[in-house]
């Protein structure tokens, strides 16, 4: 436990003083503010347009903003405002990033704007911290965010709530930037809950649909469970350091906490609880698949590329703390790898295209946590970045498919679930671009060389192995198991992704005759972002090609640029943690547990993934799928078990939700109404009953009165004489 508080940290907890300015960021606050501005403007437009629609509603008709030759201003302006602010923000972020690269500063730059919560010895500033890690995240958020905003123009362009959609989306980006740029846990928490709010609003964007708003609610509540962990971790940190700012905490952590101590373990585990909530890790992963109720670009932005990776970012950000708590790391890695495996198995049996992607996201997030758990924080961030590219691409591609299916379903016969892959098939003919870019993404996620996913995922698996073999790792054997599971998961990943592709784009078309004629490729406003993301999915991995691979075939014999660039870039952020780990358990083994060089393993894993892809192609394309309406669903115990998502929802419903609701009713009906109010009313009624009973003496008979009077006399006399 922490008893004393070194002066140096106290000094740091005051007004955050930027270190000697190695580098001057250009208007960093504007990066955050621009999306907020977009939110305000779009919000005003949204409320204006909503006035029209509600007025129409009162008159008993539906308001169609697109009925006229050209939509009203409220539905035209967001097209420019929404992506516009994102473009500006991205540009500004890029400028600053380039500036940072040029200056190559070692210390973070903290800009404080005002004292947010200042009382007593607590000081939380509204401040942003620009360092190597947060800049990478900012780039991803604004960059991928911008692309998704552009895509949304096409995807959501005909939605009556168009301005509202962009308002939410901008607000999300704002909170996400607060999250990544916040200079301390307090500020981060603002973004942390804020993105949760936006996630809630966007999942339930079509709020008139009960299921969708249920999904939003579920996401929010499950997230809040994690947030409690975050809160408690913050309290512990504050108790230890007297501040919540990153700089003093990470600088002082080593001096404060004995490695492996109870407090640090508790802090990191609680933070992990928060991360599990936000990043949909076991056991709090249940909200993410439901979150697919939101518009697909939202799924791409929030539930794939950015928000759900916030947990990974936070763990990486707190790398120093985790390095001090090996137990927590084992837990983080364990949760990560288990989540990855469980989600991957579930993805094998889903038919909803977005559900598959959702579980795939959960699974990939699991990989990132595994990376963090094995101390490969750079690898975690690396996978985060590449995953942002290919998973955003996959979701947007799915969006394009759904977009097409939606139009088709509109004209088709009867009800058609536009997201069910059993209703698709053979879409390659109608949507070649989409098909192509999605294949790129699939190969990337499957870990096929040289796509982005290969480098990032391989690095994680390799680090897991290396960690398992570290000299004095107390959990060495456990990590070996993790490694095995991770490898297995990687193979499953390749399988289910290929299954998705085959079911969607290949084979015979199952959409229906009339409907299929309406299938079409997405407009260019949607395909251009897809293509950009596809490029990133191919080359994104090259920012961190391991040195070891650089000289082998996998690195094109040194031709791949930027060897271990990310690693070096993040060095100032992670080196403390790395140092602690090395000090704690010695150098990680630089060899796989079963021998063989790095390059060999890269080859093996690529080959294995390729085999799985091939197997999936074979397995899936030979299977005859029927349309969703005619399909009874998977048979057989294991398949049903997996199809039903390991019955997590059902178990939680039985173990948590129902007892709480029943307990609530019991509290209300039994405790509140019967016990407490019963007592209160009983007191009142008892008094009246007593009054009634006493008044029975009042018979109106003089003799009776005289008798009572005499009794009173006797009592008083008796009392006087005998007492």
């Amino acid at each position, binding site marked *: 436990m922490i008893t004393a508080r070194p002066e140096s940290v106290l000094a740091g907890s005051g007004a955050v003083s930027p270190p000697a300015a190695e580098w001057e960021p250009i208007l960093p606050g504007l990066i955050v503010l621009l999306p907020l501005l977009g939110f305000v403007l779009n919000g005003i437009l949204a409320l204006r347009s909503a006035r029209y629609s509600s007025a129409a509603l009162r008159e008993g008709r539906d308001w169609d903003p697109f009925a006229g030759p050209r939509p009203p201003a409220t539905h035209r302006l967001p097209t420019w405002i929404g992506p516009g602010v994102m473009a500006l923000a991205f540009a500004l972020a890029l400028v600053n990033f380039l500036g940072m690269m040029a200056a190559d500063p070692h210390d973070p730059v903290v800009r404080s704007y005002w004292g947010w919560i200042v009382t007593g010895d607590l000081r939380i500033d509204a401040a942003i911290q620009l360092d190597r890690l947060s800049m990478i995240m900012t780039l991803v958020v604004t960059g991928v965010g911008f692309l998704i905003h552009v895509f949304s123009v096409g995807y959501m362009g005909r939605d009556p709530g168009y301005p509202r959609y962009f308002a939410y989306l901008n607000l999300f980006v704002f909170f996400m930037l607060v999250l990544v740029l916040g200079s301390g846990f307090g500020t981060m928490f603002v973004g942390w809950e804020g993105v949760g709010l936006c996630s809630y609003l966007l999942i339930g964007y079509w709020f008139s649909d009960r299921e969708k708003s249920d999904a939003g609610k579920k996401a929010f509540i499950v997230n809040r469970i994690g947030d409690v962990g975050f809160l408690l971790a913050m309290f512990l940190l504050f108790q230890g350091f007297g501040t919540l700012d990153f700089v003093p905490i990470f600088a002082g952590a080593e001096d404060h906490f004995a490695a492996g101590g109870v407090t640090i373990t508790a802090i990191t585990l609680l933070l992990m609880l928060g991360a599990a909530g936000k990043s949909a890790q076991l056991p709090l992963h249940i909200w993410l698949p439901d979150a697919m109720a939101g518009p697909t670009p939202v799924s791409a932005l929030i539930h794939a590329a950015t928000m759900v990776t916030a947990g990974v970012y936070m763990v990486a950000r707190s790398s120093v703390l985790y390095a001090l708590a090996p137990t927590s790391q084992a837990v983080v890695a364990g949760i990560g790898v288990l989540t990855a495996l469980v989600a991957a198995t579930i993805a094998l049996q889903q038919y909803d295209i977005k559900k598959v992607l959702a579980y795939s996201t959960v699974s990939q997030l699991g990989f990132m946590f595994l990376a963090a758990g094995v101390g490969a924080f750079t690898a975690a961030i690396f996978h985060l970045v590449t995953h942002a590219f290919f998973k955003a691409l996959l979701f947007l591609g799915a969006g394009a498919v759904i977009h097409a299916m939606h139009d088709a379903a509109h004209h088709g016969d009867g009800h058609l679930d536009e997201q069910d892959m059993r209703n698709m098939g053979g879409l390659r003919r109608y949507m070649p671009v989409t098909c192509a870019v999605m294949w790129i993404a699939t190969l990337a996620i499957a870990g096929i060389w040289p796509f982005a996913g290969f480098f990032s995922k391989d690095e994680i698996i390799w680090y897991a192995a290396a960690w398992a073999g570290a000299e004095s790792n107390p959990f060495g054997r456990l990590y070996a198991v993790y490694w095995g599971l991770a490898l297995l998961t990687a193979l499953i990943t390749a399988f289910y992704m290929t299954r998705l592709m085959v079911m969607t784009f290949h084979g015979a078309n199952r959409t229906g005759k009339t409907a299929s004629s309406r299938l079409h490729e997405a407009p260019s406003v949607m395909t251009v972002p897809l293509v950009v993301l596809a490029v990133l999915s191919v080359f994104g991995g090259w920012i961190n090609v391991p040195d070891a691979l650089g000289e082998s075939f996998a690195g094109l014999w040194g031709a791949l640029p930027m060897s271990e660039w990310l690693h070096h870039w993040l060095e100032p952020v992670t080196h403390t943690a790395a140092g602690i780990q090395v000090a704690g358990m010695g150098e990680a083994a630089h060899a796989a547990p079963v021998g063989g060089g790095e390059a060999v393993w890269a080859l093996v894993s690529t080959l294995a993934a390729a085999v799985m892809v091939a197997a999936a192609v074979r397995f899936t394309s030979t299977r005859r799928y029927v349309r969703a309406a005619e399909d009874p669903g998977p048979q057989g115990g294991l398949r049903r078990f997996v199809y039903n998502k390991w019955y997590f929802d059902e178990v939680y419903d039985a173990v948590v939700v129902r007892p709480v609701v029943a307990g*609530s009713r019991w509290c209300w009906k039994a405790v509140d109404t019967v016990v407490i109010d019963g007592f209160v009313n009983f007191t009142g009624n008892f008094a009246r009953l007593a009054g009634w009973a006493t008044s029975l003496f009042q018979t109106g008979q003089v003799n009776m009165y005289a008798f009572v009077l005499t009794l009173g006399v006797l009592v008083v006399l008796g009392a006087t004489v005998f007492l």
Partner: protein
Amino acid sequence: MYGDWILHALIWLPLAGTVHVLVSSAERAKNVAFRWSAFVFVLSLGLWWAYEPGDGGFALESSASWIEAWGVGYSLGIDGISVFMVLLTTFTSAIAILGSFEYVRTRRKAFYALMLLLEMGVVGFFLATDIFLFYVFFELTLVPMYFIVGIWGGERRIYAAVKFFLYTAVGSLLMLVAILYVYFASGTGSFGYDAFVNAGLSLREQLWLFAAFALAFGIKVPVFPLHTWLPDAHVEAPTPGSVILASVLLKMGTYGFLRFLLPFFPDAARHPVVVAVMLALGVIGIIYAAWVAAVQPDAKKLVAYTSVAHMGFVVIGVFALTLNGLQGGMVVMISHGISTGALFLLLGMMYERRHTRLIGDFGGIGRAAPWFATAFVITALASIGLPGTSGFVGEFLALLGTFETHMVVAAIAATGVIFAAYYMLPMVQRVLFNELDRPENRTFADLSRREMAILGPLVALMIWIGVHPTPFLERMEPSVQAVLERVEDARADAGHTLGGED
């Protein structure tokens, strides 16, 4: 200057307004009342600058002898704790009066006269630095509220009004006996605040007196299990009544904790058993009330129970006896006043339009009334303490402060954050979201200009306090610190007091 007369004016101007309302016509009553309350609010705004947080003691003090024979003074003063309570009172009174224009359609003169009378009582309570005076105002607030609930309330209004009255009276009368005890124990023959603070009571005495005071304030707060009057009162009360009740009257209880309970009985307030009991009740209140709230079919009752949960945060914040906890308690008080007041106003607007409060009768309102929905969502989020809104700052500080001394309590209480979402979001969903399946909801009118004028300032305040609470925090800090020091100083010399006692 301003400081010389403002405190008196804040108490007596509403009374003048009452008289004015009574002599004006029924049609003009609402405007007259609103102008008076707005005038009082504008006047009170000067306190923001007039109150200079110095050492945390009372400022703008003025004292006159009132009942000389008993050492009772008409003493007023303001410090960093009461200044916000007074501002909250004048603000919400004006808002509540404005919010009642449509709701109250009968017997208007009487209604507005009572509202102003209530304002006077509450302001007087917060300003009094004489214990007798404080008690008089404390009780005085019951009468207008009794009539407001009883006359303009719903079906079971009389039951609710009487329950409210009697519940509160039990506590306050027992407190009266306790006040007398301290009065005689202090031996100064004065009901002045300082005399009570320096009464020199033994621990044993303090425990008994603490119980009496805590009961009185605990009922007012209300602390579990003394809370059952609240849902009834809230459900039956007319909108403005609920607003005042939630925003201001409940604060009288928690304010009492800070102003009277802790400084008068520091040894008892610190006693481990007392702290344990109060913290336990606070935590139970947070979770229990959240649970009960979640299953209420009546929206107003739901919000009423959330008040209990919010007040639970104040209770744990206060009895954690840390600066952050107390500060957090204060912010929760302010924040709850604003957000819950706004929620009741919103529910009142729903009731005016649909004449029902059952959550199940709504659905899809977000489509019919987007402005209304926006205000509702923001208010609900402030209520459940989303960062960036006032609710978060308070709950965060309260929990943080509690955590510093009682980790487990804070950890359990923190789950209240989850349960807040558990009760609030389903209501938001079932009212605003879901399908617009009832034809009568399709014509649900959006906010009028007047309603926007009511909700606008409330929403702005929620966000202001959420984004930049420092001006509030720094003003209350010295006074809160003074309370804390009082408790801790007693701790310093408690060593021999306790040891030498028996």
